């Protein structure tokens, strides 16, 4: 299992994460990221890793 977190102070709403990993992230009403599923494995973990690598603000962290 991997734990997913978004740093709300860094997120400015590029929307890359919930586009690339819609099962793990969603948008709040201003379009900033929120975490839908905090502990991920398998396909969701792959998605979350993709989102983490593509965030222009380095706002996503994955930890064991």
């Amino acid at each position, binding site marked *: 299992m991997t734990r997913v977190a978004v740093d709300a102070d860094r997120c*400015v*709403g*590029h*929307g*890359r994460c*919930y*586009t690339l990993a819609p099962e793990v992230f969603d*948008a709040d*009403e*201003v*379009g*900033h990221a929120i975490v839908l599923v905090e502990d991920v494995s398998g396909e969701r973990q792959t998605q979350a890793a*993709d989102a983490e*690598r*593509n*965030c*222009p*603000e380095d706002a996503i962290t994955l930890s064991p």
Partner: protein
Amino acid sequence: MTEAEGYVDQAMAGLAEPQPMYKALRESTPVFRSPQAVVLSRLADIEMALKHTELFSSSMDAVDLGNIRPLIPLQIDPPEHAKYRRILDPLFTPREMARREPRVTELVNEMIDRFADRGECDFHEEFAVPLPCTVFLQLLGLPLEDLDQFLEWKDGVIRPEGDAGYDRSHENMAPAAQQIYDYFERAIDDHIASPRDDVLSSLIAARIEGEPLTREEILDICFLFLIAGLDTVTDSLDCFFVYLARHPEHRHQLIEQPDVLPSAIEELLRWETPVPGVVRIATEDVEVGGCPISKGERVSPLLGAANTDPAEFPDPELVDFHRNPNRHRAFGGGPHRCLGSHLARMELRVALREFHRRIPDYEIKPGTELTFTAALRSVESLPLTFPVPAP
């Protein structure tokens, strides 16, 4: 004149392929003092400047567009900036844009209908210019017959007669700017009298801590929308279709693997960076990459150079529609991240999908010499020829 100076000079005049200039700058003088601004071309420095809004202000002094008050939210610095983004961001989320997508799809097809049987078109004039402008009018809830008027005003402040690059004369832009204010004054009155489901009505209804926006604030938002929403998508469409016309193997990927479209758009945004740079003002004496910058100096983070920096992008000269990760900064970053980025992505997605479905093969009319415009990368004219589809 050094190589870098020569390049920056050319960039002011409009460059067909700016990527070699970005590379030369980054490798020779990553913090380059040009007569107009201190140009930053390393991703690390650019990112720092975009994030540190307390050191690099986006205030009115950065760019003059003939406006008499700061444009909202672009020319408002944090922390005040956030209160405007809190009411504006919800109007431009990917979800909100998806709601508008069917109407944009219809619009794109109506535009293609006008030239599909002709076997040729001026893509710039007949598609790249009218599409974002029409979408803008629909979004704000303004009459579509105002299109030509809008285009004239937009060019009057973005590309005023007798101006080029950063050295802009306020007087050249002021008349068009005043007409923009007057037009939106009337539009606001009209929307107050009869509210509807559009962005202007939402602005009138918006509340910040219980208080409505003032009329001036609404005007300053509308003015920015007109500047930011029309030209930039035109620029992107022009750049993308020039690239796709010249690279049939990339174009074929869009047709054979439609699922690649979203990541192809991200890659074209990275490679072309239609808005090649932004402008900031140093708020105090500061040093970037060993180069002292004085308080009040203009600083230009070159987004196009950030997007081709090998420190972030392996093989940056390779245009790879499957590139992953692709943390490009075509929409900037930090608090001023382009408010309309999701609108732009939606328009580009629909335009590329529908155009290639209807007209998969096209080329730039032989003998055409493309002229790229300065600062924002559009072409003055883009004649395309293509086989007429079977009836």
